[in-house]
């Protein structure tokens, strides 16, 4: 397939992501407005950062007038999972991709864009991911803008319904893999249980959500890697 074909295939895959992003980022825009940020500034933030948890955490800190260092630390923690996703993508990427494209590809990494890119049955051509990103960011940025402009007008009932869209997107990434691999299915169950326990246990529940997510991810994935190392032949078939 040519770059152009990959790009269009990516745009196609980006449509459902974009629609989901639009719904989710409306809630984000409302948070931005509460932090005293204008709709244009909120849209700029979404265009440049393109990360739900990171932006929520950032807006929350801006609301309380936190220092710049605090914002830097919070973003590091809230987005640290991208470090792992970017490392995984480095293994999925086809050969001979130049530095500037690696920078561009890195910029586009989000949970969902990563999800569809890593889910391809062959080595990744970055133009596929650029196609996904172009369409997806349109929904994300415009949704943030719309949320900041008319957030208070939308009925609470509608916002409540929209807020689960993000999780629906997450679920549609890990459940199909759980169907394919019994180990992943067990890991999903373990992750749910451990995350639930950590959210309600005394002391541990006081730790920030961002840190809890990273620690749980590393501990559970590492345990799985040691107990159930992937079959190399099987992996080659996937990659």
């Amino acid at each position: 397939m040519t770059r152009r074909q990959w790009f269009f295939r990516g745009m196609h895959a980006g449509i459902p992501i974009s629609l989901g992003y639009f719904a989710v980022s409306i809630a984000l825009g409302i948070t931005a407005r509460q932090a005293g940020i204008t709709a244009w500034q909120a849209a700029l933030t979404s265009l440049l950062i393109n990360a739900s948890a990171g932006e929520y955490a950032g807006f929350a800190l801006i609301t309380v007038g936190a220092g710049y260092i605090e914002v830097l630390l919070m973003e590091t923690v809230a987005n640290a999972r991208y470090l792992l996703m970017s490392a995984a993508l480095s293994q999925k990427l086809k050969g001979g991709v130049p530095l500037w494209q690696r920078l561009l590809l890195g910029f586009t990494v989000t949970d969902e864009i990563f999800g569809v890119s890593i889910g391809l049955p062959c080595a990744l051509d970055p133009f596929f991911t650029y196609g996904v990103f172009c369409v997806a960011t349109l929904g994300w940025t415009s949704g943030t803008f719309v949320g900041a402009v008319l957030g208070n007008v939308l009925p609470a009932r509608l916002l409540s319904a929209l807020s689960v869209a993000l999780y629906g997107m997450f679920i549609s990434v890990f459940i199909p893999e759980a169907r394919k691999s019994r180990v992943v299915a067990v890991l999903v169950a373990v992750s749910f249980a451990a995350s639930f326990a950590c959210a309600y246990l005394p002391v541990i529940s006081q730790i920030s959500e961002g840190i809890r997510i990273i620690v749980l991810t590393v501990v559970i994935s590492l345990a799985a890697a040691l107990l159930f190392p992937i079959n190399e032949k099987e992996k080659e078939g996937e990659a």
Partner: protein
Amino acid sequence: MNIYIYIACMAGVTFLIRVLPLTLIRKEIKNRTLRSFLYYVPYVTLAVMTFPAILNATQSPIAAAVALLVAIVLAWLRRGLFTVATASCLTVLLLELFL
């Protein structure tokens, strides 16, 4: 406090996190444990982020729990991302009419 400096801080650190592994890791990782770890990471982290956070996202935790089940079943039946996300939203919208 300047809002643009805040945005620059958020964007700068997020960009670095995203590009460092992609630019630094040029070779195929041979270590089997590390490869397995990187394979499991995305699924584990998305699962950890989904539950129990979804329960606090809506007005009624029961509606969210049903939406979670609906999404899991649809995703298991290989419905696409958009169908799964929309169905979970509609589930909450409908259930919260009664709850």
